[in-house]
């Protein structure tokens, strides 16, 4: 592969080969990842070169999503197109200085259309020969547009008749976990929570009788280090099996994470912190200390509820199987609406707060949120907060997980009054949340429900009626002024193709000042849950590698400003293809006829004091200049629409 030298920054990096050769029935291949912060750019243009050891991994993974032509039976030649980002045909071609692969859309369509004609049987060909079938052509354009992102309603509010289908055609270069096995030891990731006396509290997988011995071992290990080293053990790593055990000792609670997924100690520690924070959100630290002060062998499970365990399980699954940028980026996503619309909503809230001070005396309301809830993820629609104060994202994530669960099989028309401890706000006391579902609507073209939730938080135990009165008035006012329409339907979802950023598959952009981020909508055809999970897992791992390439052992970025390209590429070529052709029944026709795309993925991470940009390119992209230009375009686009994409001020009081 001669391209290697072309865009390799350093001398060829070492690469490991896994010891075991994949068997023939597996469609295995070897992946090498390379990533080194190549340039660290300070904004004042001084270049700081930081040397860190390159990240080298060799992975052996299953290759199933790679040849995902199933959706396009007529367009087999499309495989190569999948790696080319193109704009919607209706968009004016303003970018003249693009790469040759990135020329205008229409020639590509013609080309692939003629190709598809060739592989169709003669009867259809005849029909098409008689007259150029405009409908078929449109259909083809649609399909093409679908294979790369395209969205019916973009941020600009224009709508096109495309079906919302998103390509997930980036290869999976990671180990696929076997989650189905009944044996809990086979899981590549697990979390354990126990008391300092060694009593089990929670584990992500495993029955009681299976995990109890492990709890004893964990307890012993932690105690041993405390006694002999007077320090807490952080991590145990087994390089041979790539197993990592991370410990957190928050006496009287001990937490341990186990991972075979190559996660860093730091990642696991932050995950454990979230789990511990959840515990504290339902039993605050003072209560916890008191419970264990009287009886060190107290069984905390008696004190927790089924809901708590469900929530812990939910958080674990978010942490291990979902793209969960809220946590990974430590930021929240915002519901997109026009600047004026958001301003009107915030003004309404603000005026109501001032005018209704009889109902809701100053100091009653601590914090308020209007949230949009879809597929267990929350987006901020509006924020009511005191000047100069905001809640920690972890605290809000805990609140979100409670809300998700409480409303899962409850009826929308009830209101909830929940005591919740916000560990990052005050780990020793409770705050009280008034929660009301405002409305519920179907998302575009899918069975997914979009809910709008109002949350009002107070420090007063008996503020329910005050908050309820305020909440009712607010909702009536919003409905009366027809402002509710702005957030009951997500009109401004955007896809990557809405931004003129060629070759980019997916990105996440965070503005540090607002602690908020944006990313293109992730949607899968027909809401296929398993496909979605697979896709999210892929993205999660790519982003994980990307982030880990620029952080030190403590999990902090190695420099204030960093720009880094990261590569995942196949080590060898040709060989696997041959092997597979000899293979057995498992090989489908598609696989025999078409060679799998070579894996050659590139990502970009760009951290500055103002923003963070994480970006994954399409497979086969290797031109850094174009990628950097795209990255700049994304940043420019986000800046342009900043007031739509982010809540800048909120209703402050």
């Amino acid at each position: 592969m001669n391209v290697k030298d072309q865009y390799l920054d350093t001398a060829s990096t070492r690469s490991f080969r896994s010891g075991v050769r994949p068997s023939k029935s597996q469609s295995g291949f070897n992946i090498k990842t390379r990533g080194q912060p190549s340039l660290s750019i300070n904004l004042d243009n001084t270049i700081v070169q930081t040397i860190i050891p390159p990240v080298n991994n060799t992975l052996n993974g299953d290759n199933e999503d790679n040849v995902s032509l199933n959706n396009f039976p007529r367009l087999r030649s499309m495989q190569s197109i999948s790696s080319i980002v193109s704009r919607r045909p209706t968009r004016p071609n303003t970018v003249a200085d693009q790469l040759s692969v990135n020329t205008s859309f229409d020639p590509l369509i013609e080309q692939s259309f003629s190709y598809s004609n060739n592989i169709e049987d003669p009867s259809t060909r005849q029909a098409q020969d008689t007259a150029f079938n405009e409908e078929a052509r449109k259909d083809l354009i649609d399909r093409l547009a679908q294979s790369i992102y395209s969205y019916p309603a973009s941020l600009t509010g224009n709508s096109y008749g495309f079906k919302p289908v998103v390509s997930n055609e980036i290869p999976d270069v990671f180990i696929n976990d076997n989650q189905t096995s009944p044996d809990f030891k086979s899981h590549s990731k697990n979390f354990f929570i126990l008391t300092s006396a060694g009593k089990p509290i929670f584990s992500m997988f495993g029955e009681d009788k299976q995990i109890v011995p492990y709890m004893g071992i964990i307890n012993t290990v932690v105690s041993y280090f405390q006694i002999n080293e007077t320090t807490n053990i952080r991590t145990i790593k087994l390089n041979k099996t790539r197993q990592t055990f991370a410990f957190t000792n928050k006496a009287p609670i001990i937490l341990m994470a186990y991972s075979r997924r190559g996660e860093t100690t730091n990642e696991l520690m932050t995950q454990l912190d979230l789990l511990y924070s959840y515990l504290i959100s339902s039993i605050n630290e003072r209560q916890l200390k008191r419970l264990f002060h009287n009886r060190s062998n107290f069984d905390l499970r008696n004190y927790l509820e089924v809901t708590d365990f469900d929530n812990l399980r939910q958080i674990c699954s978010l942490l291990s199987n979902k793209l969960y940028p809220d946590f990974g980026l430590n930021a929240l996503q915002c519901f997109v609406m026009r600047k004026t619309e958001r301003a009107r909503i915030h003004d309404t809230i603000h005026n109501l707060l001032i005018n209704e001070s009889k109902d809701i005396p100053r100091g009653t309301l601590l914090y308020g949120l209007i949230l949009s809830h879809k597929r267990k993820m929350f987006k901020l629609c509006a924020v009511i907060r005191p000047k100069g104060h905001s809640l920690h994202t972890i605290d809000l994530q805990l609140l979100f997980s409670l809300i998700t669960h409480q409303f899962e099989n409850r009826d929308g028309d009830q209101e909830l009054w929940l005591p919740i401890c916000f560990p990052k706000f005050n780990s020793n006391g409770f705050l009280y949340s008034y929660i009301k579902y405002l409305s519920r609507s179907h998302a575009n073209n899918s069975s997914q429900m979009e809910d709008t939730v109002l949350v009002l938080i107070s420090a007063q135990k008996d503020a329910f009626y005050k908050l309820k009165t305020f909440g009712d008035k607010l909702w009536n006012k919003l409905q009366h002024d027809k402002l509710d329409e702005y957030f009951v339907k997500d009109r401004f979802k955007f896809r990557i193709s809405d931004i003129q950023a060629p070759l980019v598959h997916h990105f996440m952009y965070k503005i540090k000042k607002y602690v908020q981020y944006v990313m293109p909508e992730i949607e899968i055809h027909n809401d296929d849950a398993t496909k979605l999970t697979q896709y999210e897992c892929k993205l999660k791992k790519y982003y994980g590698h990307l982030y880990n390439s620029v952080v030190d052992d403590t999990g902090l970025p190695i420099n204030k400003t960093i720009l880094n390209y990261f590569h995942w590429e196949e080590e060898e070529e040709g060989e696997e293809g041959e092997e597979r052709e000899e293979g057995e029944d498992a090989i489908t026709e598609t696989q025999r006829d078409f060679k799998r795309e070579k894996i050659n993925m590139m990502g970009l991470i760009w951290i500055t004091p103002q923003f963070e940009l994480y970006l994954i390119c399409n497979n086969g992209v290797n031109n850094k200049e174009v990628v950097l230009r795209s990255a700049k375009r994304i940043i420019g686009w986000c800046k342009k629409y900043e007031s739509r994409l982010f809540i800048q001020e909120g209703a402050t009081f």
Partner: protein
Amino acid sequence: MLQFKLVLLGDSSVGKSSIVNRFVKDSFDEFRESTIGAAFLSQTVTIKDSDANGNEAQEVTVKFEIWDTAGQERYKSLAPMYYRNANAALVVYDITQADSLEKARSWVQELKNKVDDDSLVIYLVGNKIDLATDDDKDKREVEENVAKTYAEENGLLFSEVSAKNGQGIQQVFRSIAEKLYDIRKKQDATNNININSSAQRGNGPVDIHLQRPSTNDSTSCCS
């Protein structure tokens, strides 16, 4: 329309939320999440009002504002907020769990101690009778007459219900509504008598001297 506040109390997982759900939505979930904190909802019932002679029935709508509380011990400190100002309390136990009746007794005691209002209607409810049918008697741990005797001794209303099949649920709320309506009627009547009697004595309408409204004078320091 009359409005009454009603609170559900009882040990965890005796079926408080299920009872409310059966009453409000007439539905049942086998796998219900345990309540965290408390849920607030409302539902109306109509009852027939008969005057003293038992004729001329007139329909009365009663709106319940219901606090469905969490049974867990750790939320106990919140309970006073819910039962304060309540007109009725539904104390629920599970007939297949002897402990839950003990818990119910302690709730009744707490209500009697902490709520001054004598007109508070307390209704003791034994839930889950669907689990102890005639063929499956041994699941029952609380005999009906034990609870009934206790209820009578303490002046509580009592019945056994099943949120799962709906048996007796509507009746519980109806009889609470009727009882509260009776109490309200009596209160109104005594109020009327008071007013009438005072009027008969020739004192005319009662003069109420409210505190003098504060002047808008911004210089006054204690407005």
